């Protein structure tokens, strides 16, 4: 031992158990902050991966000519530019290949870097005006190969030939609409219109800015320099949001909420560490008094406490960081497992520098700040008090316990909790923070339910449909296609419009048929009545619409060609997953009812389908889809349209998964922190008072009375923490809900019932365990042992 501060390491070796709880608290706080910031970071990364896939990695787009594009490209903050323009994007302008509407896109090669989804899977980018890259739809359906020629018919009647130089995958939109798409170089694109004006030579110039540049400022400068109007500038909202570069009012509100949550997380960490340090130092005042007695000046005591706190950080902070990082890894692993295709960009062992930095800062800075006040307190212990033993027996109490209203054991428990204002504030504060955090973060779950439309179990991967909604798809296909490789389920719906009388009024009803599988999915949306009557072919299922003439129990007189028929509404669905509610003749929104297939046949005489939905096995690939398509086309001819929703489904599922994993992960971590915090606080408080408990037992206190006292203390913290937590948490929950959900979707705020129940249940379980542990320990110890500790 060369220096008085060396005593820290020597003392630590002998008092490992004493400081274990404080070190555990630091680990917990660092873990909490690391996990939450790390998870947020990873969630941002995963959302960015998805946003780039669906919307591209560009930041802004400007509708400019070639000269202006060069000016933009020359700006120092611009990293990359690429021009892009399209024709017939809505498939209504009659640019056709072999009679099929075709989307035509022209872009620079750099555009491929900005849109990973438009990757050329085979071949090369077009070099000349008469070369084109085509999508998989064209290759598969027209059975073409690279090098072959393809002929595009323009609305003016001209035929333009292109040589195929490459193949791209279908984008989500093209797959869904089963559209043909050809991709040209910008020169090729402009050459499509030989009599072009200057305005026709304009294209969108997509820009990626350099990292750390103020994108909004740069967009403003470019717009004013080139005199561009608002309609000539577009921004990649999702990507900019994820880069914290958006100025959208809604997103600013979103950032604000995220900022407040981040502050709350940090504050929770600070509270935990401060409470534990305070308690640790308070119970060693005698030791510090002894040091003062031996000649240590106040400054040395302060230095000792601070250095000791830092020595705890040496192991506790890395342990917290490591634990936090491992949890983040596990969550990333889970995401990759749930949606391997979508999250392959997410690193398995990714390091979140934001999480690590936040954890380290919260750990070290908080420990130093938290050590300040106990250090001063320790330095203030009188040497006389220490040697006389008084420092040990008379700590903290400034006023007497109130034994008038409660029995002495409960009164002492309450007083132990409330006796020291600082300790009471720190412990209840840290309890309350768990509740505040839980209630605040739970708003994000509501936000997620609104922002990300979950994929319904009934959602098809691919479907065939007749555009005029006539029932042309043979129902036998259901049984046939079920046996194809890669098929999980096949189900169809018939469609009809029938005249009917609702009371005296004549209305037109849209009638759909469901099979048993679809009825079972519909059960979740059933808001009134039952399905059994409908399934057995005796009733109708009404789809809810405000202002509807029909309601549950209404009698409807249907007027099909087969003869008048009286049926009643025996159930009401809140909604259906598709939009059939407008008449194909009038375009007016109609009443929609659902019946069984038998009833539909009885009413219309038709048993075939207008829509055939197919759900695929996870391992089904493009080859299986093409096989199914050919089977449907063979049975129905080319009049049937085909839609591939796989990419869209995958994106919806992925976005839902990632957000759900992270948000519920946050909530679990917060609940866990609340749990450990209560356990730790009570254990610390009990072990600090062990001698006092020993004395009480010596003068005749029974173990059950001691237990009641510890329960009193625990419940006081919990009740006060819960009240304080709710008093702050509920208004925050309401404010965040209004800001994130009400402002956008109009839902009114309601008391967060289940969230409240969950966190109160977690707190209650923790309280029971927290009180039971020390009581069991005391029960096992003799009075002499207790008093001697």
């Amino acid at each position, binding site marked *: 031992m060369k220096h008085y501060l060396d005593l820290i390491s020597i003392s630590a070796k002998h008092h490992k158990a004493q400081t274990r709880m404080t070190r555990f608290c630091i680990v917990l706080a660092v873990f909490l902050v690391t996990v939450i910031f790390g998870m947020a970071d990873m969630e941002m990364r995963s959302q960015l991966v998805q946003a780039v896939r669906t919307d591209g990695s560009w930041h802004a787009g400007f509708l400019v000519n070639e000269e202006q594009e060069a000016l933009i490209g020359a700006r120092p903050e611009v990293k990359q530019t690429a021009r892009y323009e399209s024709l017939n994007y809505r498939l209504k302008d009659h640019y056709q290949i072999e009679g099929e509407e075709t989307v035509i896109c022209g872009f620079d090669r750099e555009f491929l870097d900005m849109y990973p989804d438009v990757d050329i899977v085979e071949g090369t980018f077009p070099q000349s005006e008469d070369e084109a890259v085509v999508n998989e739809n064209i290759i598969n359906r027209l059975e073409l190969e690279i090098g072959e020629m393809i002929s595009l018919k323009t609305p003016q009647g001209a035929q333009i030939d292109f040589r195929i130089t490459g193949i791209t995958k279908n984008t989500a939109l093209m797959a869904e609409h089963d559209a043909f798409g050809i991709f040209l170089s910008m020169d090729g694109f402009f050459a499509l219109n030989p009599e072009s004006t200057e305005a026709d030579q304009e294209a969108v110039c997509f820009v990626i800015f350099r990292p750390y540049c103020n994108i909004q400022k740069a967009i403003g400068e470019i717009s004013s320099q080139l005199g561009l109007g608002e309609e000539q500038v577009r921004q990649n909202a999702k990507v900019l949001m994820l880069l914290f570069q958006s100025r959208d009012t809604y997103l600013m509100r979103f950032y604000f909420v995220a900022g407040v949550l981040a502050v709350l997380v940090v504050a929770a960490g600070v509270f935990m560490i401060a409470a534990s340090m305070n308690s640790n130092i308070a119970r060693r005042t005698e030791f510090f008094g002894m040091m003062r007695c031996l000649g240590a000046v106040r400054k040395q005591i302060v230095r000792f406490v601070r250095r000791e706190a830092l020595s705890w950080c040496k192991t506790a902070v890395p342990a917290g960081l490591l634990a936090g990082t491992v949890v983040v890894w596990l969550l990333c692993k889970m995401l990759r497992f749930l949606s391997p295709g979508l999250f392959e960009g997410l690193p398995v062992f990714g390091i979140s520098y934001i999480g690590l930095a936040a954890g380290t800062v919260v750990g070290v800075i908080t420990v130093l700040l938290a050590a300040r006040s106990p250090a001063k307190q320790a330095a203030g212990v009188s040497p006389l008090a220490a040697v*006389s*033993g*008084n420092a*040990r*027996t*008379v*700590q*903290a*109490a*400034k*006023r*007497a*316990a109130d*034994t008038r209203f409660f*029995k*002495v*054991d409960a009164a*002492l428990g309450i*007083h*132990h909790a409330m*006796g020291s204002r600082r300790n009471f504030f720190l412990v209840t504060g840290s309890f309350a923070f768990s509740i505040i955090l839980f209630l605040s973060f739970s708003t994000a779950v509501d936000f997620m339910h609104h922002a990300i439309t979950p994929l319904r179990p009934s959602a098809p991967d691919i479907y065939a449909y007749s555009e005029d909604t006539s029932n042309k798809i043979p129902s036998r296909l259901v049984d046939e296609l079920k046996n194809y490789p890669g098929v999980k389920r096949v189900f169809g719906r018939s469609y009809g419009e029938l005249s009917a009388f609702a009371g005296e009024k004549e209305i037109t009803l849209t009638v759909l048929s469901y099979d048993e599988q679809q009825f079972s999915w519909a059960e979740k949306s059933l808001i009134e009545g039952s399905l059994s009557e409908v399934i057995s072919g005796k009733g109708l299922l009404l789809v809810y619409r405000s202002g509807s003439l029909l309601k549950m129990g209404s009698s409807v007189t249907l007027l099909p060609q087969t003869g008048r028929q009286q049926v009643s509404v025996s159930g009401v669905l809140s909604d259906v997953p598709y939009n059939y509610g407008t008449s194909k003749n009038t375009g007016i929104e109609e009443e929609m009812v659902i019946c069984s297939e038998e009833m539909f046949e009885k009413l219309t005489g038709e048993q075939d389908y207008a829509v055939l939905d197919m759900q695929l096995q996870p391992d089904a690939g493009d080859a299986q889809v093409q096989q199914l398509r050919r089977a449907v086309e063979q049975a129905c001819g080319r009049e049937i349209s085909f839609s591939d929703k796989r990419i869209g489904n995958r994106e919806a599922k992925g976005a839902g998964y990632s957000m759900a994993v992270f948000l519920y992960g946050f909530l679990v971590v917060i609940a866990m922190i609340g749990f450990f915090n209560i356990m730790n606080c009570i254990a610390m408080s009990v072990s600090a008072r062990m*001698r*006092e408990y*020993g*004395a*009480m*037992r*010596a*003068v*005749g*206190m*029974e*173990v*059950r*009375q001691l237990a009641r006292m510890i329960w009193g203390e625990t419940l006081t913290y919990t009740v006060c923490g819960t009240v304080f937590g709710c008093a702050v948490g509920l208004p925050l929950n309401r404010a965040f809900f209004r800001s994130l959900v009400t402002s956008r979707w109009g839902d009114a705020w309601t008391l967060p019932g289940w969230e409240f129940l969950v966190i109160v249940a977690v707190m209650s379980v923790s309280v029971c365990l927290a009180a039971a542990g020390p009581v069991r320990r005391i029960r096992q110890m*003799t*009075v*002499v042992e207790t*008093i001697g500790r």
Partner: protein
Amino acid sequence: MEILKAENLSKTYGTGEARVEALKDVSFSMARGEFAAVVGASGSGKSTLLNCIGGLDTADSGRVFLNGKDIFDMGEDERTIFRRQSIGFVFQSFHLIPELNVEQNIIFPILLDYKKPDKDRVEEILEVLGLENRRRHLPGQLSGGQQQRVAIGRAMITRPILVLADEPTGNLDSQSSRDVMDLLCKAARHYQQTVLMITHNMNLTQSADRVFQVVDGRLGELGGGR
């Protein structure tokens, strides 16, 4: 009248080389109102003897009868209740409850029985202790001597038949020590309580009726102090 009787008490701590025989076959008895002092070197087994007699600790063998009842025959809870009703403790470092004021600390054993204390008795004790003006003070606001007086008050409030005092003057100045000794004597003489006190200070044994000495765990009687 025999109040306390210890028979063949033995207690060993540790095993092997660390084995210490704290008590070796200790037997003695005390009558009602008797004041006895136990002296001995540090580590001789005095405190172990006191803890065993008070039921704070158990002996490996032997028995302790208090008012005819074998305290080692009792269960943990029964012994605890018996202790708070029949034995008063006074410790060297007082062991007052810091959150309770003087009066609350004194009536604490009665409160543990969920009973209302007798006001006259409380007043009498406060007067005897000379703490009437300090009744609302917290232990932290008292001197060491005053704290020890409170501890004696707590030991006397239930009128226990036995008061056990472990170095009650160990942390006190000479005046306070004299006050404490006077109070213990009063407990024996005036209230007819049996008092067994451990001390290092041979001068204090002068007030005792009997003086025991513990040497290496064996108890011997030195005779009367007075």
